């Protein structure tokens, strides 16, 4: 039973959270051709490594991003989304 660190509420048991999928930096749809847009919305990377993931703390309604090594199931850090999250 994991513990996840909510950026607003601190460490809480994993049952209080909802996984929201891999984080994609929001892209401007107008700048992508059809094939690239299809990749953007349908393709999910399964390979092991450090992922940025959306997580949601149900009790407080907080969405945040967790950087997780999905090979070790180790969460490296969590933080709230800002528009700058897409810039790296």
């Amino acid at each position: 039973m994991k513990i996840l660190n909510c950026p607003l509420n601190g460490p809480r048991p994993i049952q209080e959270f909802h996984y929201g999928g891999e984080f994609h930096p929001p892209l401007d749809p107008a700048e992508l051709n059809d094939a690239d847009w299809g990749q953007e919305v349908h393709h999910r990377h399964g390979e092991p490594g450090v992922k940025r993931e959306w997580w949601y703390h149900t009790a407080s309604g907080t969405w945040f991003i967790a950087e997780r090594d999905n090979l070790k199931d180790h969460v490296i850090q969590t933080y709230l989304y800002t528009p700058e999250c897409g810039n790296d």
Partner: protein
Amino acid sequence: MTSRLPPQPGEWIDREQPLDFQFEGVSYQGYTGDVLSSALWANGVHVLGRSFKYHRPRGIYSLANHDANALVSVGSRTNLRADCLPLEAGLQASAVNTLGSASRDYLAIMDRFSRFLPVGFYYKAFHTPRRLFPFYEKQMRKVAGLGKIDPQYREGPTGKQYDFCDLLIVGAGPAGLSAAVDAGERGLRVILVDENPHPGGSFTWQWQRNAEAQERYKKLLDRLHALENIDLRPGTIAGGVYSDYWVALFDQHRLTKLRASAVLIASGCFEQPAVFQNNDAPGIMLGSAAQRLIHRYAVQPFTRGVILGANSDAYRLASDLAANGIDVTALCDLRPEGEPSTAHAQVEATGIPVYRGFTIYQAETRRRGKQLAGVIACPLDRKGEPQPQAGLTLPCDGVAVSVGWAPDGGLLYQAGARFQYKTEVEQFVPNSLPAGLFAAGRVNGIFSWPDQCRDGLRAAREAAVYLGQPGVTELDSVTHQGPSPSHPYPIFSHPGKHNFVDFDEDIHLADFKNAHQEGYDNIELVKRFTTVGMGPSQGKLSNMNAIRILARHNRATIQATGTTTSRPFQHPVPLGHLAGRRFHPLRRTPLDAWHRQAGGQMAHAGSWLRPEYYGPADQRDQSILSEANQVRQTVGLIDVSTLGKLQITGPDAAEFLERIYTGRFHKQPTERLRYGLACDETGTVLEDGVIARLADDHFYVTATSGGSGAFYRELLRWRQIFQLNVQISNLTGQLAAINLAGPESRNVLKDLTSIDVAGDAFPYLGVRRGTVAGVAATLMRVGFVGELGYEIHVPASSALHVWEVLADAGRPFGLKPFGVETQRLLRLEKGHLIVGHDTDALTHPAEADLNWAIAKNKPFFVGSRSLEILQQRPLTRQLVGFRLADADVTPFPKECHLIFDGDTIVGRVTSIARYSTLKHPLGMAFVQPRLASPGSQLHIRTAPGKSVVGEVCSLPFYDPENLRQQ
């Protein structure tokens, strides 16, 4: 009690409390504090059970809570290990896996066939011909398996509790006790568990005659008992370690779900068997088992014994046995060089002959293997092979084996530790531990009690530093000194094939050779093929030897051969400890009690309980149709409190809705409703509902009962991504909603509300705020069921009052409550789809004829880019209405029945109603576009070889001009 010794210092039995018990129908006497195995041994009963495959008699082997051949049933409880079953007054136990009794088992004949049952025999022999497999299976089930399950077994739920601590220490031996005291005196909250009923570990059996050790043990206990922050839990198993040090603790009564900040494993080692012919005969046991019998239970293990040893422990054991009056005939030491420590001189002083470089080649039995008669010992050559021609016969009634140890490392492995094989101790020891996990004592390869204590201290200090304690003096690591406690290969071949490696599963040495010849050269595959380590003890006595054997076959190192994966639980756990109620949230509307009283047939709808209809269960169809007719003809009332109810406010509220929904909202007038359709990023229909504008910056939105929770969550995510100034409040639970529908609804409502309900004052798709029955309410003119109707939203606390006032006022008009099934029929007649019911995870708006809800030339909404792509492609399916001519056709089509064109699937029924107010069956289906035009014939397959023909018709079925809801 033939074998009970005089009182021993520190013995666990209470001689003041003798107990009567029965084993296989025979009465015996033991003491409180005995386990079943010790009490039987004290009574001279040496056959405690039969082996799994060959039904060979077995006695005590480890007496360490993993004697998998001494399993008993007590009443409905079965597969109980006799070596950790506390003796109780009146206990009636019998051995499992026998035909007859443990002493006289008719299935013992299996042993004579053993040479015809090589490893893999069952896999190979019984899988063809396939048609005979059910027969084989039935026959094999009769003889396979251990205890019989009582299907009538009933017991109340076993308790569960949660707990927390700074440091969990597993194992209360010298290392664990030292660590607990050090951490406790530092103020840490410590939980110390030990599977035995008393703490002490090897203090209580190996070092009983060592005054210095006993002095340390007593002092440690005194210091431990003086500390309130140490919670000592004997009789408790740490069953498994999960993420972030969530540990499952089991005791007799409950499962404790423990969250520890750090975990220290001082679980010790399992003493390991030597492999020689007939090494399973009753009377042959581990040296530690013999010492446990003597010191914990004051039972003589045997009267005349031979010791097979390969370490210092064997020499201490010899002195210990001799001191307790046991005639030790010989000590055979596998090591040609013998014992270098002073322990050797002590043994020689007692006159026990020591044979260096000797093994036991085979054991001799009498009474069909039930009694040990003696052993043949023989020298080993330079390669370690036995030389039986130079053997000598040693009569004895017991053998104590002390050739090595294997770490009890399961919890460490589960927690992510890595182990390395160290030849200094011929043992796997942890060499890499994740943060917060610590190991000490024998599991860490540290063997003498003073070193174990030091290693416990060292680990406790490291844990204290990890936990942020100030001023901790760290200690140097402890290393093993002296000869290795384990022999690298205490395994000896014999043509007789009763030299067992795994006692649980009766696997002997040649089975491994055969497995290797068949190509099984990986430890995990060898495990599956031979089943080594898959028995009730999970290889506690066999995995290490299996690895040694495979390494030798592979000509590889033990490190390279590796170990099998360790999984929970460390010991068998009764299923009752694991069973429990799952927490399913169940939501009831504020009108729940009223529905039940009125005969509502309650059913689960998502997380909600809702009435499907009102009336007897055997009049389902009639009740639904009668409720529907009432709505169509006069007026009905339905509880729609399950609707998602979201309030969207703030300066960016309209902009936010424009981005979420496919429609336009900037110019939506106040006091008006608009239909809202939302897609996800792939263009799939996600949600629909109505959006009421109450003010420029204030919207009130309804969402589907089943999807609103997830939709609310998504809205919160999009709000963050869009960075808009908008507040989203989920009012689903705070507000109740009641839909008053039917041609008479205006007449029912008009005298109960402050709102002018006249048609032109409050038109279709209007929203008004005022009072209903004196309660503040928001009213919306919607047409889901296709009639004049008012959806009345009021605080949940007032819902019952409003409902009852409406029901009273409606009585003169024939008002009836109607259920959710009736509502489904009515909306189906009206051609309204239900998102998630008539749509699936790929449905995009064009397929469901919802393109009208998508605003043209809108620069962006969620899914707009995907829809732009999808709209250019030809449709592959369309949602259509269809009707059937006959309601009496059988079998009647159901939702999800497939539609065929010849042998090709061309569609699927999404909704269907057998009886409708339109007097014919009707439904909706996804079909290929070529079948979507009215008049097309749909062949719905209702059963193999049976089809029903439906005819596509235009939607809606009912009131196509939309006159009734205006």
